[in-house]
C-alpha cells in the first residue's frame, strides 16, 4: 500500500483542485471503519466504539478530552468501603428504540449475557465478576458484588452496552443469547437507530436519529437526522472521497503525507487531537539477547526518536517516555525519556557483550504490512542498531498473525511494532495489562516482562480505591519498567481525522475517537 500512497501523492500534486461537496443535505456520510459485527457484547475493537456510542447507552460514558467519566444511564453509584459492592441507580423514564422502558432487568441481563458468552469486553470483568454477582435490587437499582476489590471496575463500566432484554431473548436460537441475530440487528436505546435493512458488513449502515433519546436534544439545536456509514477501505480513495465531498469524515489515523494535502484542499480540514494511544516497539524480554537489560538499553538509545516523530511523522505525535500516556494520571511527570545517543548505545551494547550476550545473531523485527508507520519505525531502528554493529531484519506480518504468536515466549518475535489504544481510561489498560506477568500470553503483555516488585505494585493499585494513592503506585511501577527498558515507547498519538467544513460540533474523545454523532450538526 505504500507504493500506492506514493503513486497517488505524485499524481495528485500534478492535478488540479477537487470538486465541490456533493453529499446530500442534512445527511452525514461517515467514512470511518465499521465494526466486524454489530453485537456489542461479542465484538470489541476500536470501530465498535463508534457503533456503541451512537446506538447503545451504558451506565457511564466517557465524554470529552481528557475523557471524563460521566453518569449516563445511571444517576450515580456507591461503592462499599471494602470495594466489593457497587450499587448503581438508574435514571427514570429511559426508553429503548422500540419504546419499551429500560430498567434494572435489562442491565442485569446485559451484564450476565456478556459474562456468560465470555466474548468481547468480558475479559475486563471475568476475573472479578461472576454472572451471579449481578443482581437487581429494584426496578431502578442494580448491585454488583466483586470477587475481590478491583478499582478499574468503574473505568470499564462504559464498555458494557445495555441491550433490550425482551427483544434479544425473542431472537435467541439454540441458546446463542441472540448473538446470531444481534450481529446484524440492534436492541439499543442510543441516540441513533440503525436501519438493519441497509446493513452490509463493513460496507454500509444507515442510522436515523432517535428523537426520544433520554439525554434529550436541547444541547444541539440542529442535530443530524440521517447518518450513512460508508466505510472506505483504501486510504487514497478515502482522502479523495473526502476532498470530492462524497464523505464528510475519514478515519482518525490519516497518514502524515495526506494531512498536508487535506489541509491544503478547500472545504475540508483535519481535526488534530491528542489521544491516548501509545506506539511501542516490543522486545521479547525472554529471548536472548533481549533478556539482557544492558542490551535493551542499547536498543532504546539506538532509536532516533526525533527523526521519526519530527521528520517522518511531521511532528504529528507527542514523545511519550513510558507505557502510560503522558496525558493520563499515573504517568510520572519527571520521567526522562530515552534519548537517541549512539555513543551511549555503543557503551550499553559493549557492556551486554561483556556479560556474554550474543549480539551477532541477526535480530528480527516484525511489522504489520497494512500500517506504514510500523515499517518506517523498524527502518529507523535498523539504521540505529546497524551503526552499533547489530543487524536487524524486517519481517512482514499481520496483526492477526502477531497477536496469535504472542501466546508463548518461543513464538513471540524478537521485536514487533504496535499501538495500545484506549479501551478504558485507566492506567490498567496500559501498564497493568502490559507488564503484569498475570497477563503473559496476551498480545498486550508480549514483552514477557517479569518483575515481582512491579507485579505487586500493580496488584496494590488494582485493590486501592483512592485515585491519588493509585497514581503513586502506577508512577512507581512506571519508573521501574522504564529503568529496565522493557520496551521502546515512542509516542502518544495525535489523532488526525479529515472532516468536511460543513460538520460542526465535532467533539473528540480518546474513547470512540470523536465518532459520537449526537454532538454534531451540519452547517
Amino acid at each position: 500500500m505504500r507504493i500506492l500512497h506514493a503513486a497517488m501523492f505524485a499524481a495528485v500534486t500534478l492535478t488540479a483542485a477537487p470538486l465541490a461537496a456533493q453529499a446530500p443535505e442534512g445527511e452525514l456520510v461517515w467514512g470511518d471503519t465499521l465494526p466486524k459485527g454489530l453485537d456489542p457484547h461479542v465484538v470489541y475493537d476500536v470501530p465498535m466504539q463508534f457503533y456503541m456510542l451512537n446506538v447503545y447507552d451504558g451506565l457511564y460514558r466517557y465524554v470529552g478530552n481528557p475523557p471524563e467519566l460521566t453518569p449516563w444511564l445511571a444517576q450515580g453509584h456507591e461503592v462499599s468501603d471494602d470495594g466489593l459492592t457497587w450499587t448503581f441507580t438508574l435514571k427514570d423514564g429511559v426508553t429503548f428504540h422500540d419504546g419499551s422502558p429500560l430498567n434494572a432487568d435489562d442491565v442485569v441481563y446485559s451484564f450476565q449475557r456478556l459474562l456468560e458468552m465470555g466474548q468481547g469486553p468480558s475479559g475486563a470483568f471475568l476475573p472479578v465478576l461472576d454472572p451471579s454477582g449481578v443482581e437487581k435490587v429494584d426496578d431502578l437499582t442494580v448491585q454488583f458484588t466483586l470477587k475481590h476489590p478491583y478499582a478499574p471496575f468503574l473505568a470499564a463500566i462504559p464498555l458494557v452496552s445495555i441491550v433490550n432484554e425482551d427483544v434479544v431473548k425473542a431472537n435467541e436460537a439454540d441458546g446463542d443469547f441472540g448473538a446470531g441475530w444481534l450481529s446484524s440487528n440492534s436492541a439499543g436505546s442510543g441516540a441513533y437507530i440503525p436501519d438493519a435493512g441497509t446493513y452490509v458488513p463493513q460496507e454500509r449502515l444507515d442510522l436515523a436519529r432517535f428523537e426520544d433519546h433520554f439525554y434529550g436534544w436541547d444541547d444541539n439545536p440542529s442535530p443530524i437526522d440521517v447518518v450513512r456509514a460508508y466505510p472506505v477501505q483504501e486510504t487514497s480513495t478515502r482522502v479523495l472521497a473526502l476532498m470530492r465531498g462524497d464523505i464528510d469524515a475519514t478515519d482518525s489515523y490519516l497518514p502524515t503525507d495526506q494531512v498536508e494535502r487535506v489541509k491544503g484542499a478547500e472545504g475540508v480540514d483535519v481535526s488534530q487531537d491528542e489521544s491516548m494511544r501509545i506506539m511501542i516497539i516490543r522486545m521479547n524480554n525472554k529471548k536472548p539477547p533481549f533478556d539482557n537489560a544492558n542490551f535493551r538499553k542499547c536498543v532504546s538509545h539506538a532509536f532516533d526518536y526525533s527523526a521519526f516523530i519530527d521528520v517522518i511523522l511531521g511532528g504529528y505525535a507527542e514523545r511519550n517516555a513510558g507505557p502510560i500516556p503522558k496525558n493520563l494520571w499515573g504517568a510520572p511527570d519527571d520521567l526522562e525519556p530515552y534519548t537517541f545517543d549512539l555513543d551511549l548505545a555503543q557503551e550499553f551494547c559493549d557492556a551486554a557483550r561483556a556479560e556474554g550476550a550474543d549480539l551477532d545473531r541477526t535480530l528480527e523485527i516484525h511489522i504489520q504490512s497494512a500500517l506504514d508507520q510500523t515499517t518506517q519505525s523498524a527502518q529507523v531502528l535498523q539504521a540505529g542498531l546497524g551503526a552499533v554493529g547489530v543487524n536487524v531484519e524486517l519481517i512482514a506480518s499481520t496483526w492477526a498473525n502477531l497477536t496469535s504468536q504472542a501466546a508463548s515466549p518461543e513464538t513471540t518475535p524478537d521485536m514487533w511494532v504496535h499501538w495500545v489504544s484506549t479501551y478504558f481510561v485507566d492506567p490498567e489498560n496500559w501498564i497493568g495489562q502490559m507488564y503484569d506477568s498475570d497477563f503473559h500470553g496476551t498480545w498486550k503483555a508480549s514483552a514477557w516482562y517479569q518483575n515481582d516488585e512491579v507485579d505487586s505494585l500493580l496488584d496494590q493499585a488494582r485493590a486501592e480505591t483512592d485515585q491519588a494513592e493509585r497514581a503513586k503506585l502506577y508512577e512507581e511501577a512506571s519508573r521501574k519498567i522504564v529503568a529496565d527498558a522493557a520496551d521502546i515507547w515512542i509516542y502518544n498519538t495525535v489523532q488526525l481525522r479529515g472532516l468536511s467544513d460543513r460538520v460542526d460540533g465535532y467533539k473528540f474523545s480518546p474513547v470512540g475517537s470523536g465518532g459520537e454523532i449526537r454532538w454534531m450538526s451540519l452547517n
Partner: protein
Amino acid sequence: MVLFVIRRLILIIPILLGLLLLTFVMLRMGPGDPAAAIAGDNATPEQIAAIREDLGLNDPAVFQFFDYLVRAAQGDFGVSVYSNRPVGLDIAQRLPATLELTIVALLIATVFGLIIGVLSGVWRNSTFDHLVRIFAVIGLATASFWFAIMLQLVFSMDLGILPLRGRLATGMPSPPVVTGLYLVDALLAGRLDAFWSALAHIILPAFTIALGGLATIARFTRSSVISSLESEYAAYETAVGYPRRRIITPYVLRNSLVTPVTQIGLLFGAFVSNAVAVEAVFDWPGLGSYLVEAIFTNDYQAILAVTLVIGVIYGIVNICVDVIHGLLDPRVAETM
C-alpha cells in the same frame, strides 16, 4: 458434446479437492491462530482455548480437513471472523458484485479487443496499427492499482463525470435482488435511476480490470487475422475475384476468432486476481476486497470458501471456452 461437458464437470471435483487441500495446508503452516483471530484483540488465553476446542482446532489436521469437507458439502462454510456472519451468506452477497464487474470487464475487453485487433490486422503497419501496438504494450505493463488511481483522478476528481467508488450513489436503495447484478436487477425492477447509477459506477473499475485483457485480445486477434489473410484460401478467394470485404467478413473473421476466444478464457483468471486490488481501490463490495480483509484477519474459513468459489468459476469458464471453441471450429468439436 454433452458427454464432453459432463465428463469435464466431473473432472472439476478432484481439482477442487486438491485446491482446497493445498490452501488448507498453507493456512495451517502459517503462524496465525484462527482461534485468536476469532476471539478478538482483548481475549484472555482461556477464551482463546475455549474457542479452539469449540472449533475442533485441537483435533488432528486430517480430521479437521475431512470435517471441513463434510460441512462444506452441506453448504456450511463456517462463520467469518471478518464479518461475524456465515461465510456462505457473505459470499452470496458479494459474489454477484464480482461477477458483474468481471463480466462487464470481459465485455469491454472482448468487444474493443476484437474490433481493434481486426482493424489493426486488416490495416497492418498503418499509423493506426502502430498506435495500437504502443497502447498494447502500455496496457500490458500498467499496474492495475496505479491505473485505477489515475482513472479516479482524471474522471472523478478533475472532470467529475464518473463516481469515485462503490456500486451505487450514496443513499440510493439497491434494486430488489433477483440476480444480484445491479445492472440487470435495476432493469428488471424498472429502476432506471439505479441502472444509470450502477452503470456510471462500474465503468472505471471494469475498464481498469479490462485494460490488460483488451491489449492481449487485440494483439492475438491481429496476428490471427494476419495469418488468415496470408492463408491459401484467402489467396484463392482473391484470385477468384472476391472483393476484400467479402473475404474478410465471413471467412477470415471466423477463422481468426479461435485463438482470441481461448485467450478470453485464460484472461478470466487474470481478471479475478486483478479484482483483488481494483475492488479495494474502488470500494467495490465483491469477493476481492473480502479476500484481502480475510487474509489480514486470518479468516481461514472465508479464505477457503473464496478459494473454492474462484476454483469453481475458473472450471466452468474453461468448459465454456472449450464449448465455444468447438462451435467455432468443427474439427475441435469432433474430438469432444
